[in-house]
């Protein structure tokens, strides 16, 4: 089992390394939010430009982690269309190992993307001391693991590379907008605050924001608990989908053309 998880992680990281240019390209979106959207909205908000940028830095970090984790999960959908994964499927490794390996590999890729963005913190007015940096990286790791689990749980239910990105955007964008990544939840309309309590992205961003600003919206144990619960529930659900595929080697997807 452990060997299987390890093999899948090494496989995905090897493929990720081929595409490492993605790390640089992946910077564009969060920096755009931070310095363009941030400058525009900041100037018109009561916080002022500098404070606003500092405020949304954890939000853009969350965005970056969320998107890189989901992008990593797309590999699952792609894998079904290339033969390589068939060879993986007939290897004598348990299906849960494939699911867990994918989740861990996605989280590592997501953290790698986050680490590329982190040095921009001072530019956003969020200078982090050593302790804050450690807190921030810890929060990033937990966030990345959560997002990767969400990504895999979504991806293992799709077998079309054209449908999945659209569908995942339809799920992830609302989660991001409700998370308080770009505005303080404290002053948001009541319904949004209620909705945020059901949004794992909100807890993840709040943990990161707390590390930067020292002020949390949710109690820290609640956030950690909510993220832990999300990881466990969604990982279990992905394992179930992957296991279902054992009957026909199709990874749970019945329309996978290779197998009927």
């Amino acid at each position, binding site marked *: 089992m452990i*060997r*299987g998880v*390890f*093999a*899948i992680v*090494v*496989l995905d990281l*090897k*493929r990720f390394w*081929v*595409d490492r240019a993605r790390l640089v390209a992946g910077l564009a979106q969060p920096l755009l939010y931070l310095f363009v959207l941030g400058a525009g909205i900041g100037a018109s908000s009561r916080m002022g430009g500098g404070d606003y940028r500092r405020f949304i830095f954890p939000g853009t970090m969350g965005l970056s982690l969320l998107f890189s984790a989901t992008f990593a999960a797309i590999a699952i959908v792609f894998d079904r269309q*290339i*033969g*390589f994964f*068939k*060879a*993986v499927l*007939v*290897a*004598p*490794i348990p299906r849960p190992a494939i699911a867990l390996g994918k989740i861990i590999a996605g989280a590592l890729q997501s953290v790698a993307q986050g680490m590329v963005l982190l040095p921009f913190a001072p530019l956003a007015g969020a200078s982090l001391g050593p302790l804050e940096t450690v807190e921030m990286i810890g929060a990033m790791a937990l966030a990345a693991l959560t997002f990767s689990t969400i990504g895999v749980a979504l991806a293992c239910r799709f077998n079309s590379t054209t449908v999945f990105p659209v569908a995942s955007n339809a799920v992830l964008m609302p989660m991001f907008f409700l998370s308080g990544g770009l505005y303080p939840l404290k002053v948001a309309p009541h319904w949004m605050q209620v909705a945020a309590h059901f949004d794992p992205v909100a807890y993840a961003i709040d943990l990161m924001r707390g590390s930067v600003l020292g002020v949390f919206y949710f109690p820290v144990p609640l956030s950690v608990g909510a993220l832990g619960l999300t990881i466990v529930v969604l990982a279990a659900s992905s394992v179930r989908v992957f296991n279902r595929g054992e*009957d*026909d*080697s199709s990874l749970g997807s019945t329309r996978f053309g*290779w*197998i*009927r």
Partner: protein
Amino acid sequence: MSTAPALSADAPPAAVDVRGLIKHYGKVEALRGVDIRIEQGEMFALLGPNGAGKTTLFSILATLRSPTSGHARVLGRDVLAERDAIRRDMGIVFQEPAIEHRLSGRDNLFLMGLLYGLTMAGARRRASEVLEQLGISDLADRRAQQLSGGQRRKLELARALVTDPRILFLDEATLGLDVDARRTFWGQVRGLADAGRTVFFTTHYMEEADVADRIALIDFGVIVALGTPRELKARLGGGIVRLTTDDDARARAWLSEHGFAPEPGGHEIMLLHADPAAVLPELLRSLPVRVERAEVHAPSLADVFLKLTGRGLEGGNKP
């Protein structure tokens, strides 16, 4: 003390033992009762047109699909109940590419080794061994996408061999390769079989099936013939004689008078006969013309298939 060693309990199980195998996809009957027994170390070809049930039978044996009913064992193990045990002992070359083309050949083999439970160092070592064995070490560090079709197929074979399988499954493994690349590929597979590995492969190229020890012809989900290539061809009841003479018209006339039936037309004389090699000396002695060239042909597997099913191999029979 057993006095009947052939029946002793430690006799090796058949590499493949299939009895009464049936597979339906909804209403489509892909396999309609297949019986095959393949001994260990045999190189076995499953030959038939597209849609005959080749890939279905292949997939069931390679534990990729489950049978609707019937009995299928590989190396003595049930394809459903002992799937994982079979998987540890088999290697597959798929019809479609199954290497990650963005990675090097060496990396592909290394990852496959990891997936089969080798250590990092063990997987690396094994990758080098297999590359060496197939003579493609010099290509190993290039990205797979930079290789030619034939080289990539060799890499597929290498990938299947990483786990040192006792049985090798190949499904239309040379699809899209030119004749030279196909010949090289099958030469290597033949070598593996000669070294004691069981090989089971599907194809719809008759000349590929010729390298096998035994061939099963499959059509519409049933085995229509099974035997060595020589046995199968013998079923046509003979072979073909080709002659070129200094007076073909006179030769034809003579042949017709003496009870032979030369095929009409052509720039040479073609004659179907039960025992062409035996009749040729007599023809050479008795023909009233000078024979410039004489040739004896065995019938091809395509001729056999045509005779048994009334259809050619290349056409396919999708409903």
